[in-house]
């Protein structure tokens, strides 16, 4: 007789087997249990009955039964071929069966995901793609900051002080853009784009040359720096990839310079450095090393391993505070470290990119809403299928999973096709964005693929979950009792469908508002009057190089001769030479004080642009002299310094009197007073989307400040194509070694500098159109479906005497209520978007209630049109047919 305890123990190993059997796929389970039980029984029979076994044997048997667990786990693999695989095959069959649905769903998603993937690839290029240098996360850009700006360059004195005293950086590198002229016999002079760099530039980036070597620290000394390293692109373009280039001598700016190395193509990074043809040692002279007044150096550094950027920031800030103590011009200034990668984009660019990316998300949301609705309809029409399956024993989880797998398959197909759309979009973006930056491109890499995959999975879950959940909630009894058409959706489905319309309208309005306000703002910005005539102005740049032009007087003579020759050419009406290209802004500025006004406190000195211009400048640009006189032939270097200031400066400092005759000077003990002889209207910069650095402008006679780099401005009856040849010939007549470059119209300059922003605007416009279209299709689908469902009801109404108009209003009224509700929500979102735009781009005139109202109107009209088509169909319902159908 076994006692209770023995009975329990006797069955322990069998219980274990039964328990483990639970996780074995169902159709393996009986065999699994029988096999293990029979083996245990056999063993027991051989040994003795359980209660007669000794503990050792009992433990051994238990231990063996535990092996069943591993066996069961191994059998889990069969499960894949079991339910999941069946579901997957079933999903594919269902999708193939409903080809129309599948194609619409996949294409809708492909458009939605494609828009997002394309935009993500732009973000990826600027923000996420790592730099092609080893451990590039340790490369930091070093900026000087002041109350005026966060992005200042450095003086050589400060650079050397920081480099010597810091203990957190492995290397600190100074760079300066240069434009040496390359002159070779038989080939016209070419202005190269180069970087003058300290010798640790290459070691800091950690990339070996593909040929030759880097330059050494010894070569980074004045007199020893006649060496140059070529970029791969330049080497290929100019020297056809000549393998004997190392050791060859080039004539750069009249000096004989030896080529010592060629960098590999991967080293170039145009988004970071711009186009670079050559690198040369910067070779500071001894007096330059001490210079603390001339801030022109860009600087980056490589962190020592183990130092965090935060530690580095703290350390360098402390160090710079000590430097600023010694040097009064650095008071109230600081140092800001930024990852080198981030410097590829500026603040405005980043904000606009995120803005467009965020709005692209709304396209996807609308696509999701459409898909969710399609799935809902399918769920409703398939409710009988679901009930039959549920009645035959399919669990709720199984139905849910089945429906989700279908959604995921659609989403992944959509994602795959979206990659092709994104590829096309990226090619277009690349060609537009980087037309002037060879080598730079937006590409699809693994991050982009990962994004597309993630977006697909998320959308699949998003639009698939709710319908799947509804499908799994099917009431078997109810559904099977209904007519075979079985498409009466429950209240929750109705509500959900209505919510989808409201959502689509709201999303579409946010998207439209974002795109509309941005594009309209951009349009108004370009149409703003800059105070001069952009159209018809031809511009070119010239950089006088070489020992012939080392003195201001020699440059002034050259400019005067050039102006005279150009003016004499047929078709030329006005010609002027200035320091900068006015479409972008003026190149140099400085602090100033006003004679007779109290001296400002340190750090509160106002800044003013100082722009050297020749006497015909204002006439050439089309600016108006408001007061006083223009510059004339007598304003020469040996005469007293004179200035023409802009209206804003005059109004600010002499609000109630004439500024003419007053004097401005430099800070310090030697102000070098200049007399104001005239006032012109403010010169705006139509190509500059950011805030100009200062609103104060002062113009100096070119003869008193003849810079080496100047801009030629010309107006006349000359085709832009003819201008280049004419200009080159005229300059060559004076000196054939001096090249002119960037020859283009001012309008082109403006369009180029706004190019990337307006390209993003174009993308945004395309996204908005797509979103509006998808939303309209979605609304049309929902209303059509509801009309089809209510055919019987409409039939009764018509039979009872309802007129076409009544039926039309029945459907339209319902749609209108939902659309207006959606528009109300959307308007709230649009308001948020408009505030966001004002915050992100304060210079862009985006406050525009009229546009916002107009867009809302357009959206409501389009949405109502989408309702109208099915509503009209409802009026055609024949009561006899409808009722017989029921």
């Amino acid at each position, binding site marked *: 007789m076994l006692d209770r305890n023995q009975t329990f123990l006797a069955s322990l190993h069998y219980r274990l087997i039964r328990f483990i059997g639970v996780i074995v796929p169902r159709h393996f389970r009986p*065999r699994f249990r*029988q*096999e293990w*039980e*029979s*083996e245990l*029984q*056999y*063993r027991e*029979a051989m040994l003795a009955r359980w209660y007669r076994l000794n503990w050792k044997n009992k433990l051994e048997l238990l*231990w*063996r*039964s*535990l*092996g*069943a*667990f*591993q*066996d069961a786990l*191994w*059998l889990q693999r069969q499960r894949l071929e079991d339910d999941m695989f069946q579901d997957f095959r079933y999903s594919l069959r269902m999708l193939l069966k409903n080809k129309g649905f599948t194609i619409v769903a996949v294409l809708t998603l492909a458009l939605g995901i494609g828009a997002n993937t394309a935009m993500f690839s732009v973000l990826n290029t600027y923000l996420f793609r790592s730099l092609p240098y080893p451990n590039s996360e340790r490369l930091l850009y070093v900026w000087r900051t002041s109350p005026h700006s966060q992005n200042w360059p450095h003086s050589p004195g400060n650079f050397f002080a920081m480099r010597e005293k810091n203990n957190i950086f492995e290397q600190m590198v100074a760079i300066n853009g240069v434009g040496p002229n390359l002159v070779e016999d038989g080939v016209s002079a070419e202005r190269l784009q180069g970087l003058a760099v300290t010798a640790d530039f290459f070691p800091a980036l950690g990339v070996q040359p593909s040929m030759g070597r880097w330059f050494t620290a010894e070569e980074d000394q004045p007199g020893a720096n006649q060496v140059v390293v070529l970029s791969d692109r330049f080497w290929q373009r100019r020297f056809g990839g000549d393998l004997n280039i190392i050791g060859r001598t080039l004539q750069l700016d009249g000096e004989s310079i030896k080529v010592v190395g060629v960098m590999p193509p991967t080293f170039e990074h145009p988004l970071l450095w711009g186009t670079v043809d050559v690198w040369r040692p910067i070779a500071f002279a001894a007096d330059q090393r001490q210079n603390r007044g001339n801030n022109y150096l860009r600087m980056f550094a490589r962190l020592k391993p183990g130092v965090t950027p935060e530690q580095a920031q703290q350390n360098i800030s402390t160090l710079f505070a000590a430097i600023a103590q010694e040097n009064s011009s650095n008071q109230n200034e600081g140092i800001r470290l930024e990852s080198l990668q981030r410097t590829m984009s500026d603040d405005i660019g980043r904000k606009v990119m995120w803005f467009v990316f965020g709005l692209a998300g709304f396209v996807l949301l609308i696509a999701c809403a459409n898909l969710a609705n399609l799935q809902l309809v399918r769920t409703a029409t398939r409710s009988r299928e679901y009930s039959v399956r549920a009645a035959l024993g399919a669990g709720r989880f199984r139905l849910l999973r089945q429906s989700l797998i279908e959604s995921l398959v659609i989403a992944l197909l959509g994602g795959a096709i979206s990659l092709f759309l994104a590829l096309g979009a990226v090619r277009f973006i690349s060609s537009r964005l980087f037309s002037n930056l060879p080598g730079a491109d937006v590409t699809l890499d693994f991050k982009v693929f990962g994004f597309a995959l993630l977006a697909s999975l998320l959308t699949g879950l998003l639009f698939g979950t709710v319908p799947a959940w509804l499908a799994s909630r099917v009431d078997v009894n109810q559904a099977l009792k209904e007519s075979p058409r079985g498409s009466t959706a429950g209240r929750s489905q109705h509500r959900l469908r209505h919510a989808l319309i409201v959502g689509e309208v709201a999303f579409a309005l946010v998207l439209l508002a974002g795109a509309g306000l941005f594009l309209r703002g951009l349009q108004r910005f370009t149409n703003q009057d800059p105070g001069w005539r952009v159209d018809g102005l031809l511009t070119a740049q010239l950089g006088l190089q070489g020992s012939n032009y080392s003195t201001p007087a020699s440059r002034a003579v050259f400019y005067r001769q050039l102006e005279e020759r150009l003016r004499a050419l047929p078709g030329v009406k006005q010609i002027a030479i200035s320091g900068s290209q006015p479409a972008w802004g003026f190149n140099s500025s400085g602090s100033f004080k006003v004679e007779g006004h109290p001296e400002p406190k340190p750090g509160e000195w106002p800044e003013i642009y100082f722009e050297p211009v020749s006497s015909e400048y204002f006439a050439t640009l089309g600016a108006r002299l408001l007061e006083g006189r223009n510059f004339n032939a007598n304003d020469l270097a040996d005469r007293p310094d004179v200035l023409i200031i802009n209206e804003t400066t005059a109004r600010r400092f002499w609000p109630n009197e004439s500024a003419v005759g007053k004097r401005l000077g430099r800070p310090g003990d030697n102000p070098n007073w200049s007399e104001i002889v005239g006032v012109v209207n403010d010169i705006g910069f139509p190509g500059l989307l950011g805030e100009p650095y200062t609103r104060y402008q002062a113009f100096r006679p070119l003869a008193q400040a003849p810079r080496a780099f100047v801009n030629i401005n010309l107006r006349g009856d000359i085709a832009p194509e003819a201008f280049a040849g004419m200009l080159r010939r005229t300059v060559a007549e004076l000196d054939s070694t001096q090249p002119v470059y960037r020859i283009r119209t001012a309008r082109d300059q403006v369009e180029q500098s706004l190019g990337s922003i307006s390209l993003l605007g174009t993308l945004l416009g395309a996204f908005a159109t797509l979103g509006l279209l998808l939303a309209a299709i979605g609304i049309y689908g929902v209303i059509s479906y509801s009309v089809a469902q209510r055919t019987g009801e409409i039939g009764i109404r018509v039979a009872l005497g309802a007129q076409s108009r009544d039926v039309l209003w029945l459907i339209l009224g319902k749609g209108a209520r939902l659309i207006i509700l959606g528009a109300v929500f959307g308007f709230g979102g649009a308001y948020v978007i408009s505030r966001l735009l004002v915050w992100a781009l304060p210079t862009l005139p985006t406050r525009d209630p009229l546009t916002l109202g107009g867009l809302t109107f357009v959206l409501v009209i389009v949405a109502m049109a989408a309702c109208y088509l099915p509503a009209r169909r409802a009026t055609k319902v024949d009561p006899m047919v409808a009722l017989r159908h029921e």
Partner: protein
Amino acid sequence: MNLSYTTAIILQALANGYQYGFDIIDVTGLPSGTVYPALRRFEDTDLVTSRWESEEIAGNEQRTPRRYYELTKQGHQALAEALRRYRALENLFAVEKKPRPTDA
């Protein structure tokens, strides 16, 4: 197909007439959690087939029929291949041949 030493041992045990899971565990000394998944895999890849013991035999002993495994032609080939790699295998478990259940 490259067999690991462990799986080759199980094949060799099968070839030598040990046909039940627990017998293989006993003779090889391998844990049950190794032997069973290996048998399942052999069956999936057609190296072995399985059958149930006749009801009669099991009935006589008042227990449930056991499942037994046999090497297929591919199984024998795989074993021969494994034997070339692990020469010592051949002499394992060769001493006592178990009678086949159908022989009984």
